[in-house]
């Protein structure tokens, strides 16, 4: 049996994953994606029969953190296996082929799976200087994206850079970095944002496509609602401290040691939609807030440029500076005094008029 024809169930069995374990995975995934138990069972059934999905992975202006997040789990997981199972026809970080051979593999996959392949993009696309800030094999990122996206079934962006521009697009955005959705307007785009995104979210999203051959339900930013439907704050285990008004005031105070709410040290949990607080990271059952640092809001657009910075509480914005306000005082006083002086002279002339 050639690898190409092997389905996921067979692949799992070959890698020593029992059907029971796989079912459990599907149940958990299903509940995360708000499927009914029946649907979860159906998902297991369908997924087991799924054949390899052709995937072209385009890495543009990125740090490889997203790929690291998904592939370098400290021990092999079921998620990584699903990831392995997909047919990565092109991934210039991971693939052995290089240069023309690599580009050839991409073109071949595009031809062979026309209209069926999925394009995964990580990294933003620099548009400055005619998009020449980043090229691969002499092809600009923008051109490669347009070419590759043309015949795809859907695009999955991995990471905030591809989804929203991310750090490369942070002020002053020297390369003119943009998100995939700024360039491609005619294909479904699923944004799996995060810096990096959660591996479970990535595999969950791919699982959904494998299972249902369709795009999952998305929020207004194009993110799968199953994973981005709730805020970190909504699911945060420190939430009761917030409600009680118990806050850490700094990272080494009594409140921080007691594990109180990190709102005051800048946690963006209330405005950040991601699954960190319930799915947790690294197989270690933790996430940033649990490690004692507030959420940076990395799955949200422009998180890098938010008013006040990472450590300004949400209710505190960029209110300017005391110098600016002092200037406002001076300007107000000057205009007010001028108005009063003009008023006095008006009164004076009224008085003269009366006398005459």
């Amino acid at each position, binding site marked *: 049996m050639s690898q190409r024809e092997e389905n996921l169930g067979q692949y799992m069995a070959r890698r020593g994953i029992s059907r029971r374990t796989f079912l459990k995975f599907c149940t958990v995934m299903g509940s995360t994606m708000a499927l009914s138990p029946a649907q979860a069972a159906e998902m297991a059934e369908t997924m087991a029969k799924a054949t390899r999905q052709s995937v072209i992975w385009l890495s543009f202006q990125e740090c490889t953190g997203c790929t690291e997040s998904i592939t370098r789990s400290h021990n092999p997981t079921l998620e990584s296996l699903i990831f392995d199972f997909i047919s990565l026809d092109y991934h210039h970080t991971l693939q052995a082929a290089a240069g023309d051979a690599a580009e050839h593999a991409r073109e071949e996959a595009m031809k062979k799976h026309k209209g069926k392949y999925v394009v995964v993009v990580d990294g933003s696309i620099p548009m400055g200087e005619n998009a020449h800030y980043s090229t691969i094999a002499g092809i600009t990122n923008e051109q490669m994206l347009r070419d590759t996206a043309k015949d795809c079934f859907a695009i999955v962006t991995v990471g905030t850079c591809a989804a929203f521009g991310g750090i490369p697009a942070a002020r002053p955005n020297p390369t003119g970095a943009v998100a995939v959705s700024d360039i491609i307007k005619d294909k479904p785009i699923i944004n799996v944002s995060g810096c990096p995104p959660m591996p479970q979210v990535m595999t969950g999203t791919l699982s959904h496509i494998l299972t249902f051959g369709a795009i999952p339900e998305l929020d207004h930013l194009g993110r799968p609602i199953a994973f981005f439907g709730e805020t970190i704050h909504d699911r945060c285990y420190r939430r009761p401290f917030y409600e009680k008004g118990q806050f850490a005031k700094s990272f080494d105070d009594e409140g921080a040691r007691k594990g109180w709410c990190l709102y005051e040290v800048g946690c963006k949990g209330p405005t950040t939609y991601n699954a960190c607080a319930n799915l947790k990271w690294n197989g270690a059952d933790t996430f940033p807030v649990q490690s004692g640092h507030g959420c940076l809001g990395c799955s949200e657009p422009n998180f890098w440029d938010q008013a*006040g910075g990472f450590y300004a*509480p949400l209710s505190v914005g960029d209110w300017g500076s005391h110098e600016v306000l002092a200037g406002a005082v001076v300007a107000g006083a000057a205009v007010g005094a001028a108005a009063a002086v003009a008023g*006095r002279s008006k009164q004076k002339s009224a008085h003269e008029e009366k006398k005459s």
Partner: protein
Amino acid sequence: MTLLEFARGPAMEWSLIILVAGVVLRFAGIFLLTRHKTYFRTKGGSTLAAGLRTIGTRSAPTPDLEHRVRFSHYTGYLWHIGLFITVLFYAPHILFFESILGFGWPALPTSVVLAAAAVTLAVLIALLIRRMVHPVLKTISGFDDYASWFVTTLPLVTGLVAFGHLGADFGWRYETLLAVHILSVELLFVYFPFGKLFHPFSIWFTRYMIGGQMEQRGVRA
């Protein structure tokens, strides 16, 4: 730029500039106007003492007249106190003040603040209805009265909505609700110096002045 970024960034900075400059402008424009001299022999004692005393005594109606204004007086206090508790003792609000003033103070439990906000909102709605039906209030009220009510009540409503994540059913997300709340406060800042909402700044001076003016005639203000 998202709505929340706009609210927390440029909108906040400009609304504060307008608030500060507007208040100072109005103050300077009023108090630098001319003053008329008094020539009569004064009758009472120190106008300074009387003025300062009146700042306090005008906090409540003089006992003989209290029964005529009971409703306005007590509801007025009720919603002002409720609003102060909400504005000054909710933890996220204190952080905002702390960022500007450089110091903070202890917060009240969220449940207390929530109750205060709810009471305040209820009283404000009752007072709006009263303003529209009471023979005096409906006659003397104009745009400023309703606008002032609106910009005062709006942050309370948007704050409660954001707090309760209400609106999720309509697809309104928390960051949008928070942005709307912050923007509504900024609307209040911008309107503050230009209408009757200016009164918290002037009240101390007007009370002081009437106290002194009446004292000059030997009358307790």
